[in-house]
């Protein structure tokens, strides 16, 4: 039975139209390039990145931080679907949980890519500095979140493969655990930076709330886009109502995000203490010894403009209900939050460094290629998950013997 299922599964995964094969080959190429770049890095050391003692975390950790937000956002679907039984969302919650699985997997890969001696990562298990080190907390919550979402997804699919609905008695504990856990991955990651008194830019209490607010923008925005692509290229049914509900939630989250951001900008620029320097570096550039250091300035303004414009679009029902404008807004949210919660958060923590030095960091080619490879792995994981889930839902892929099958209503 299981063997037949696996053969069926492989047949489903390997079958597709030209677009599907093109997509897979592009992902394959990017992954191969990323792997080659990573092996180069493993051989020569992190010297092939542009990170240095002055800016000791860079593009990897920036992407990691952004993706933790994306992962946490699955909760935006879990709450309305399981707690309030909002039907349109309930039908797609599985795809949200899959996004969480994808994002957390990418997070773990990015952290591994950033480590100087990844093959010794098992040392964390031998002598975890718990509860003192927030990094140990992060390892626990991220892996836990991965397990929770994987079990939710596998359980629902397992039941569906038997032609049955999931049992709420089993789903409840998973759901109840996953909601606080989603907030915890973001809070813990925020605290990871927040707890460092050596870095005034991060050492502000508003960091964790801002993390959550922006996570609730970027994750759903990504979901809206992915869902539309998914329903266009596959038989999956996702209602407009569900998408509109998510868009409405983004409006609230972005409002909160911008408010918290404004509070931080006001405090820094009005009081103008010496700790203004990182903020000044972001928005205007910092002058030192006659040199203006401003490599991040264009990105900061792009992010701000994107976030504000997207907020306006999401806020106005007329614009939000139109798919073209809403999609533009989603892309803007992704760009805005990607910059703000990525490089815009990590790099200024190191500028000026603790001894007052300014090093203009931008990622090296290796960092870009490795990161692209990891994104491609994420996309591949998601594609394969969808490719597995849809036929199961449609009853084409089943653990039930052929003669006993009946077509269950598609979700």
């Amino acid at each position, binding site marked *: 039975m299981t063997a037949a299922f696996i053969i069926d599964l492989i047949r489903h995964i390997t079958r597709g139209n030209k677009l599907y094969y093109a997509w897979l080959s592009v992902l394959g190429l990017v992954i191969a390039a990323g792997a080659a770049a990573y092996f180069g890095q493993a051989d020569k050391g992190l*010297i092939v990145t542009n990170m*240095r*003692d*002055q*800016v000791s975390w860079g593009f990897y950790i920036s992407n990691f931080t952004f993706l933790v937000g994306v992962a946490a956002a699955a909760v935006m679907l879990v709450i309305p679907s399981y707690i309030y039984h909002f039907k349109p969302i309930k039908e797609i919650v599985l795809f949200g949980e899959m996004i969480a699985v994808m994002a957390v997997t990418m997070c773990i890969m990015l952290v591994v890519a950033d480590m100087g001696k990844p093959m010794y990562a098992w040392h964390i298990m031998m002598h975890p500095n718990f509860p003192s080190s927030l990094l140990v907390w992060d390892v626990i919550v991220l892996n836990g979140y991965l397990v929770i979402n994987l079990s939710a997804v596998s359980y629902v699919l397992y039941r569906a493969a038997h032609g049955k609905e999931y049992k709420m008695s089993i789903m409840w504990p998973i759901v109840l655990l996953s909601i606080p856990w989603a907030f915890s991955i973001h809070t813990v990651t925020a605290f990871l930076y927040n707890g460092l008194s050596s870095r005034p830019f991060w050492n502000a209490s508003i960091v964790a709330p801002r993390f959550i607010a922006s996570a609730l923008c970027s994750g759903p925005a990504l979901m809206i886009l992915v869902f539309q692509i998914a329903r266009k290229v596959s038989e999956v049914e996702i209602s407009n109502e569900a998408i509109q509900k998510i868009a409405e939630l983004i409006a609230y989250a972005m409002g909160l995000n911008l408010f918290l951001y404004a509070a931080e900008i006001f405090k820094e620029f009005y009081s103008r203490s010496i700790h203004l320097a990182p903020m000044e570096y972001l928005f205007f550039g910092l002058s030192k010894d006659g040199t203006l250091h401003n490599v991040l300035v264009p990105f900061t303004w792009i992010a701000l403009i994107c976030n504000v414009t997207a907020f306006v679009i999401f806020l106005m029902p007329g614009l939000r209900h139109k798919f073209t404008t809403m999609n533009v807004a989603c892309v803007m949210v992704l760009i805005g939050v990607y910059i703000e919660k990525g490089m815009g958060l990590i790099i200024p923590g190191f500028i000026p460094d603790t001894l007052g030095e300014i*090093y203009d960091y931008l990622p090296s080619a290796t960092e870009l290629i490795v990161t692209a490879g990891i994104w491609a792995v994420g996309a591949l994981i998601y594609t394969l998950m969808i490719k597995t889930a849809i036929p199961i839902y449609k009853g084409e892929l089943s653990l039930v013997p052929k003669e006993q099958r009946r077509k269950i209503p598609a979700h």
Partner: protein
Amino acid sequence: MRHKLIVAAALALFVIAAGIASAEDALPKLTTTTPPFTEGIFPCTACHASMPPNKEKRTLSFHTEIQLKHGDNWCLNCHDAANRDMLHMANGDLIPFEKLYQVCGQCHGNIYRDWKIGIHGKRVGYWNGDKTYYLCVNCHDPHSPKFKPLKPLPVPAGPKEIMKIKGTVPVVIEDKKLYVPEYDK
């Protein structure tokens, strides 16, 4: 009874004395370096013994390499006219060159105090054992005590240059070999 008391007292005394002796042995030895005389200049009496002392403040026709830039002093404020191999205190007490810090300390009392307890000046050797004090004149030219500027060692490599290094070259400072970088142009 009395005998016992005496024995006990003697024993106690012996133990205390032994304790003091061993404590003194354990004290780190504080030695000083020697004054950095120009070669062949000391003992001064080699020349001065046959010269009648001239106590008049004047421009010397010998020792012309000495630029006296030390307050309003002149030679015989510190050097002794009668015994050229010695220095003297303001009250006339003779002081050997090895103990010149007593002469310096007359004016620079605070610094002398700091030097004695290790705050001013330089010590080398063992932090918990024998250490050598540098004398005032090992660092300061007594005739012109202000520090002379030094050539600094190479600038560190910036974050973009940490691999742009040709090699290392030795630089000898106070008999110690230090390795400094040579950068790619």
